[in-house]
């Protein structure tokens, strides 16, 4: 009986995880895009006119990364395809500036998606010219990258079709660049309708919190109503917890987009199991700590004492010379001075060993060579710069396990 109920619970948790994971990993489109109703209406109306009336249009959807451009478009497309006479009537063509890096590849892709495979290249546009043909929706993801193609031929042709009495097309560009129109050549620009849909979220923190709650809540049609109530109650209390609110406020301050929020919630969700049937505030705090952690400081934790000493020597050099680049010889001298004067716990290392440690730091990209031509200068004299902030070094030293005290003191002291 007991095992049975645990099993059942386990399956329930799997179900919860599945439902929420689909949400957080963007595998399923939300029922309705949040906070972009007007944009949704505008885009839907525009595409509907293309599909139903055969009116050619061009539009740009502009918004920062993670603001939901693709989500909006997919929602609109879903809604559009639900309309009966549109369903069989439109041909969407998806292109991505990161995949179709030049016009030839893009044309091939268009050909493929339109099933015109018996054509060669430049004839695609000939075939687009029949006005009785089905409306084609060209969806250009990373639109700004298409503007870097030679002569912007593809954009010119697509927009030209959209501006002439040929086949009805809709050119939909998705980009995060606000200055995308400045990239277009003047004749391409003239052919673009200058219709831009901006997705700039002006979400307040209260809405943000609401959103978190709704994102974590289970849907109405959840099979187990008892668990459904329990879970949703626990989520409600979670969102009222002060520490959780603080964490979320921090995240909200950092970025308003949902993608980073989903990352946070995903980490918290993964701690839910049969024995732990709800998300606790500590889970969220831990998840937030993982999200906010400084990656460089983490790398510093894994360094050897020698490497750490070299980093400290570099920090002192930076302090002395006000951020001027240094070379290995300088670092080595600084390190030797430290050994002679203050060190009690650190042995004297041979120069090649120190060199090796220095090279390891370079490989970790904690230091970066300033010269472009590395071959000509001897390794010892290559100019380097430290890619670490003081705070990062100090933080790492605090957390470094069993760090010798003299090393710590050396790091704290001004000018070695």
């Amino acid at each position, binding site marked *: 009986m007991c095992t049975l109920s645990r099993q059942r619970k386990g399956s329930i948790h799997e179900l919860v995880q599945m439902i929420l994971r689909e949400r957080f990993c963007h595998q399923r489109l939300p029922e309705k895009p949040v906070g972009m109703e007007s944009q949704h*209406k505008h885009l839907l109306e525009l595409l509907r006119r293309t599909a139903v*009336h*055969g*009116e050619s249009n061009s539009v740009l959807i502009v918004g920062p*990364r993670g603001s939901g451009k693709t989500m909006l478009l997919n929602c609109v497309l879903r809604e559009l395809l639900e309309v009966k*006479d*549109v369903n*069989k*009537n439109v041909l969407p063509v998806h292109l991505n500036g990161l995949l179709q890096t030049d016009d030839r590849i893009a044309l091939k892709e268009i050909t493929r998606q339109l099933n015109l495979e*018996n*054509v060669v*290249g*430049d004839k695609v*546009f*000939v*075939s687009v010219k029949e006005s*009785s*043909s089905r*409306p*084609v929706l060209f969806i250009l993801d990373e639109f700004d990258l298409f503007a870097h193609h030679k002569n912007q*031929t593809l954009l*010119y*042709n697509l927009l*030209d079709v*959209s*501006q*002439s*009495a040929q086949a*009805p097309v809709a050119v939909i560009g998705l980009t*995060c*660049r*606000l*200055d995308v129109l400045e990239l277009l050549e*003047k*004749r391409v*620009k*003239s*052919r673009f*309708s*200058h*219709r*831009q849909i*901006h997705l*700039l979220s*002006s979400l307040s923190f209260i809405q943000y919190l609401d959103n978190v709650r709704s994102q974590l809540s289970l849907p109405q049609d959840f099979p187990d109503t008892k668990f459904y109530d329990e879970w949703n109650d626990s989520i409600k209390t979670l969102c009222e917890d002060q520490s959780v609110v603080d964490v979320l406020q*921090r995240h*909200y*301050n*950092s*970025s*308003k987009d949902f993608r980073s929020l989903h990352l946070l919630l995903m980490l918290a969700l993964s701690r839910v199991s049969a024995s732990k049937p709800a998300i606790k505030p500590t889970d969220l705090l831990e998840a937030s700590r993982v999200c*906010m952690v*400084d*990656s460089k400081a983490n790398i510093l934790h894994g360094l050897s004492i020698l490497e750490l000493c070299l980093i400290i020597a570099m920090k002192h050099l930076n302090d002395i010379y006000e*951020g001027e680049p240094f070379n290995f010889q300088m670092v080595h001298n600084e390190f030797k001075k430290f050994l002679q004067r203050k060190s009690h716990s650190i042995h004297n290392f041979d120069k090649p060993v120190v060199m090796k440690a220095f090279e390891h730091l370079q490989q970790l990209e904690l230091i*970066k060579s300033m010269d472009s031509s590395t071959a000509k200068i001897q390794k010892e004299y290559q100019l380097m710069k430290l*890619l*670490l902030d003081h*705070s*990062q070094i100090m933080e790492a030293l605090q957390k470094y396990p069993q760090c010798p005290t003299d090393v710590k003191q050396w790091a704290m002291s001004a000018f070695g």
Partner: protein
Amino acid sequence: MVRYFTRLRVRRIYKWGGRPYIFDRKLKSYGFEYLNMSVEGQEAVTTVTPGQYILIEGNDDEYPFVAKLLKFFGDESHKQKKALVQWFLRLSEVPQNKKLLLGRSPHPQEIFYYLGRACDNEINAESILGTVHVQHVPEDTPFPEPGTKDTLYVKLSWDTKAFNVLDPVLMQDTPASTPPKPALPLFPPCASPTATPVSRGPVRRALPTPDPTVMRRAGSVSDTRATMSAGKRSTLEAESIHSASKLSASKILSAKRRGSAADTPGVRKKLQLSIGASPGKKMTRADVLCELLDEEMESEKVISLKLSSSVSHSLQHGCSLSPMRSVCKTPNGQRRFPWKLSSISLDRLSPTALGEQDFSRATTPSRRKESAMAIREPALGVLAEEDSEDSPMQPIALTPRSKRKSAQLVSLRIRKQLNLLDNTQELISDGDDDCFVPSKKDLQSSSDEEKTVSEEETRGRNCKTSVRTPHKTPSKKALQSSTDEEKSEEETVVRKTRGRNGKTSARTPCKTPSKKVTPSTPRHATPSIPSRTVPARQPGNILDEARARLHVSSVPESLPCREQEFQDIYNFVESKVMDGTGGCMYISGVPGTGKTATIHEVIRCLQHASDMDEIPTFRFIEINGMKMTDPHQAYVQILQKLTDQKVTADHAAALLEKRFSNPAPKKETTVLLVDELDLLWTRKQNVMYNLFDWPTRRHARLVVLTIANTMDLPERIMINRVASRLGLTRMSFQPYSFKQLQQIITSRLNKVKAFEEDALQLVSRKVAALSGDARRCLDICRRATEICEHSASHPSSTGLVRMSHVMEALDEMFSSSYITAIGCASLQEQLFLRAVIAEFRRLGLEEATFQQVFVQHRALSRVEGLQPISVSEGLAVCQRLGACRLLLLEASRLDMLQRVRLNVSQDDVLYALKAVRD
């Protein structure tokens, strides 16, 4: 296989043949009966007689012009050789924009009867290249299977405006061409213009490689008939002799039976017609044919009942072909008599020179056979079989009823040629049947007739098993396969096939026309996007209609505000077209000022004028520098639009060079529009050079209109020799003023009352102040109608687009999104922007590294009472701002050392941030 003399690049020699008859006393011009042409250094001579279809030297070796020769004439000195022709057009000669009128993909061998008046039908006789076989295909029958490269097919006529069904009368009747019959009967029937088809397929085959022996013999006969075609003809005859000598008794018997079966009034009638087919006949030939066929049907029905055997299948061919052909066959048939039954033919006809020649030749049949065989190209080995197969029927000529015999011979001849030509001809002849047989009753009877034919044929073949190959005996299987194949064909053909049953099977299965006569070649076909299943909905209300009218793609009724430019371009092009000269024009203007639209309008008007016959016809070709991958593709595209050829860029350049530098008898002016000229720039500028050089050629008749954005393009990017050729005919399209923009919108709306006057003025003023781009103006108006529609739910709205709507649309399109974007950024992002400005102020520079900015950022967050963020987070914030292009960043591999710059002015950032705080 060398097809035409022109390929050989040799001099051709042209000589008048026959005696001149006075054609026009006043002009002192003489008409001539035929023209002999020969190639220098070769003895081969080709005779061209009026009525034949000829090839005329054009600007394309591959596709010379085709025409039907009407008559020859020359002046007293006989130096000047001229000919009157009836032109035929290849599809490539039809203007590009009219090609769609055809409504189907053309057959590669298809030509069109030209009914226009723009082309001079008087040509220099010395531009004739040779003869060609043209066959009329009725409208609703399919084209024969391709393969007979030397035959061209006429289905439709072209009158510069539309394709029409070609009246078969036009193809047969050439009353104008018939020269006044000279009293001297040199060889009366042949002199008539209908002698052409004699030299059809076989002649063309014989043309390139005439057998020397035959040719010499032919040449030795002083008569002008001794041409290559005659040579070929004699070889055919020789074959028949050859095989005739091997005749078995049974063959003679069957032939006799066939001969008697052919004894029908219809045949006689036909013969009479053919003999008496003089210009005096008032009846049109089609009428005659109908009458004739009717008679024939009746008689044949009777005969087929009476006799178990029936008419030779040659009869069927006889009626299946156009009467003209059967008529013109006749004389040849008669000419054969002399050596077969000289006594009879002699009393019927005055012995012709040809007859004597044939007769004399008949003495050495075996040798001639050899030579005849030598003439054939190996690829046509089937031919030999066909000929010898048919030849046993020749003895029917031995029966004294010469009329019938001649008819027999005619049909025999036809059949032979049909066999010689591709088997696809069979289909054609069927088609002809359908076309010429006037009523359904006749159709039925014709199938009856065919049935009997097949019976007869089968019997005949069974007798001649030695000649026939076994697979030709009608087997169920063969029948099955052939009918199966044909099922896919049109209904009429299927019906035919059934009627024909035995006959088709009697043909070799391999000869059964393959049904893949799809004229469209899939390789070059442009695939189309599937057409929409649901028709586009019509606009519902006024705003919808206004929006449709305001779309840039909708073609306005007129182009307001470009009247002056329109007139200038119109005059320029019109004068060039009228004079038949060439020229260049350069048109510049910023985007959206109506350059291309104006030119299209000009061309539309000119096109209309040429349709009205006010100006000569011309061709309009458009290329766009943006729509090609490489400047050299321009040649390819021009050539493709001119002639439908698809070749490489180099070859295209050479062909165009040739086309534009050589004179051609019927050349239309070509108007070439080169859009986005600046993209045709190459380092050597040879593309531009050629484009501007061709119009200066004397025979080019090319008008080049070029469009680009910059006014000083010729000075800026063109080297001197190119700029000089472009000339100084320039025109600049100024950006539209607000009044013009307003006028444009008003004219587009055309009484659809959707905008308030003030709203329109606001849009036009705003756009005119910014760019003067009409496209922009239209887009804004369109957006305003949308906004209006959305807000239409307000009770106060009048349904008109008001100022507020236009303002909103303008804001959407012109307002910078940076300030909004900064306003919507997260707190840390805003803080970072402030840190950037603070660091810039500190440094006094407009650039700082991330490290420096981050120090500021940290300090600022302390001031704001925020928890300081880690470096990784700070970098993420910086990258986000960089992705939006609020900041300009160096490559991110530089990490903390990457330099940061603002992409917005500091004031804007401060303004936006201040707005957020308040």
